[in-house]
């Protein structure tokens, strides 16, 4: 086998994932349904965001509830750069003139949409990355609330009371696909890089990782900044997709849907992020169609409005209960059970069946051998 082929086989899972998504897009675009293409574009944008969130959560094992804050920052950065200057001068009086008087091309705006969240993530992450487990999750949630409060009240810059409007709507399925594939590539390259591997080591066993000279806080910070940049790009896409937006688009609802996608697919793998986005989008669209009513020969089947949201909530709860590692079980595509992957038991696998009580460490991470140790030392529980 030539070297190239070997390389392709070794890194087959992101390539196959990207190819599957591309085929999905090609089929839907060729089908010619306008409605389908709009949902598809939104799915691809969400996929970019979910992959971005995965880069942090999946590799570090820390749940973040704040990434939609970065999406918001990215979307508004892109909005400031691309909105109609006449409108900006009228409505966004607080903007600096290089933003107020100019209109930048899409790709420049995307760079801005990645850069600003990355900078914010660097500052925030430097402070909170040393927190552990639930404390870190709460801090990210607090960040979401701060962004929400700030952007909806800073009226002269964000038009928070009304909406940021007059944006060009240029994002179509192909642009969405380009960014989603880009996100898959970046996320994969990161997770097989030495930083990604060190971070994953700290996720699986933080004491052992620290003892092996992994600087956990630094590795987490790198992932945090990278993931903020990716979700920021997703935010920029949203801005140029919607044409006008309010701060409320980027709040609890989107946090819930993107987390649901990641949980359904499986938090621990890139395949999970991609598959989860597709599956959840399918569920949402299916229920939405039923809400509009479907005629079956004699009768019309119609669900009351709201069933789409309830259905999504139920699906998510069921996955959490029945298959806590998600559809992908934390594995990448085509990682065979018999291969090395089977030996590499995922964290979630273990914690799902480990202890009989809620995880007291709160970090979501169980040490290797902890289970055995605890079974042997019932009267002297290590926690």
């Amino acid at each position, binding site marked *: 086998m030539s070297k190239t082929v070997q390389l392709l086989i070794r890194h087959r899972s992101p390539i196959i994932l990207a190819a599957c998504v591309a085929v999905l897009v090609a089929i839907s675009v060729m089908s010619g349904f306008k409605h389908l293409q709009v949902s598809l574009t939104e799915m691809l944008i969400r996929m970019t965001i979910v992959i971005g969130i995965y880069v942090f959560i999946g590799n570090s094992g820390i749940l973040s509830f704040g990434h939609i804050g970065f999406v918001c920052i990215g979307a508004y950065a892109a909005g400031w750069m691309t909105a109609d200057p006449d409108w900006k001068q009228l409505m966004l009086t607080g903007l600096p003139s290089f933003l107020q008087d100019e209109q930048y091309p899409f790709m420049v705006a995307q760079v801005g949409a990645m850069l600003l969240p990355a900078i914010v993530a660097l500052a925030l992450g430097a402070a909170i990355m040393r927190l552990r487990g639930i404390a870190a999750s709460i801090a990210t949630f*607090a960040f979401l609330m701060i962004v929400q409060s700030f952007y909806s009240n800073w009226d002269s810059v964000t038009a928070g009371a009304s909406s940021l409007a007059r944006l060009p709507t240029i994002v179509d399925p192909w642009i969405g696909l380009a960014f989603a594939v880009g996100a898959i590539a970046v996320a994969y390259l990161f997770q097989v890089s030495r930083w990604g591997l060190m971070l994953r080591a700290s996720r699986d066993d933080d004491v052992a990782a620290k003892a092996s000279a992994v600087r956990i806080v630094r590795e987490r910070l790198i992932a945090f900044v990278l993931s903020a940049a990716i979700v920021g790009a997703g935010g920029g896409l949203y801005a140029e997709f919607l044409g006008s937006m309010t701060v409320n688009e980027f709040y609890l609802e989107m946090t819930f849907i993107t*987390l649901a996608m990641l949980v359904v697919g499986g938090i621990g793998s890139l395949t999970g992020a991609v598959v989860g986005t597709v599956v959840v989008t399918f569920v949402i669209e299916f229920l939405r169609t039923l809400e509009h009513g479907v005629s079956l020969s004699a009768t019309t089947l119609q669900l009351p409005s709201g069933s789409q949201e309830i259905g999504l909530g139920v699906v998510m709860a069921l996955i959490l209960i029945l298959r806590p590692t998600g559809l992908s079980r934390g594995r990448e595509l085509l990682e065979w059970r018999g291969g090395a992957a089977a030996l590499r038991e995922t964290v979630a696998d273990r914690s799902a069946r480990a202890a009989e009580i809620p995880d007291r460490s*709160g970090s979501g991470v169980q040490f290797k051998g902890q289970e055995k140790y605890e079974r042997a030392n019932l009267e002297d529980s290590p926690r």
Partner: protein
Amino acid sequence: MGEFLQNIVDALSLGSMYALVALGIGLLFGILRLINFAQGDFITIGCYALIVPSTDVTARMLIGAWSWPALIPSICLIVIIVALLTYALVFRPLRRTPSPTLMIASFAVSYIIQNGVLMIYGSRPKAVNLWAGLNSPIFIGGLRLPLLEIVTIAVALLLMAALTLFLKRTLLGIQMRASAEDFRMAQYLGIRGNVVIGLAFGISGLLAAVVSLLYLTQSGSLSHVMGVPLALYAFVAVVIGGMGSLVGSVAGGFLVGIIVTFLQAYLPPDLRGFRDAFAFAIVILVLLLRPAGLIQAKNVVERV
């Protein structure tokens, strides 16, 4: 001076409401390591249970038309049942999962409840007039105080005293405290985990029901997301007060009430909108500087 005293009473009344919600969240966190966002939606359910289920614009009273000795227990019962149902259906199967997973699950529960309410009652806010008499002011030494605020503070203090007595003096209460300290050890000693956790959910439901009545009397309008801000502030209170400590939750609740009232009263008008940003910035600061909160719970020290 009069205005200042007025603000103090406002702050205490708001604070006692937050403290009750925070107690509900803190209780579950202590035992289950669950941060229950659905606590706010329990409150929403308590409010909506008062009216006839329909998507009409005007609300017709159902339980809300009953006299208070019938009304209060029925609402409490309904919310307690809902709380126990969420435990039985969602949180019980997830008891063994790590804390952040539970937090996600509580998001899912909250999402389901909110949209369920939306489905049954419609999305438009509805005006409800409950116990209008309580909104009339009373005068104490020249101070004009809404009767409701006094009632809120009194009810909160009463409930806290009752809960304290329950936790300190009854067998079940002592079992709950033991479980909060070390759940596994408590189980080894023969405490039934399901009973204790179920009881904690029941008490959370009871607290939510009481808050729902107080809150609705004050606000006079129903919306399917009405409980969310209460839960968010209570969550801030729990973190500031010290997660896992009930005294901390109460203290945090009052503190948040005071901070919010005084920021609202004395912050320059331009900055008032950023009140929530300040509140949550305090959360991050507390996590960084004093991760255990104001009052440290005994069981949060991690051992390796």
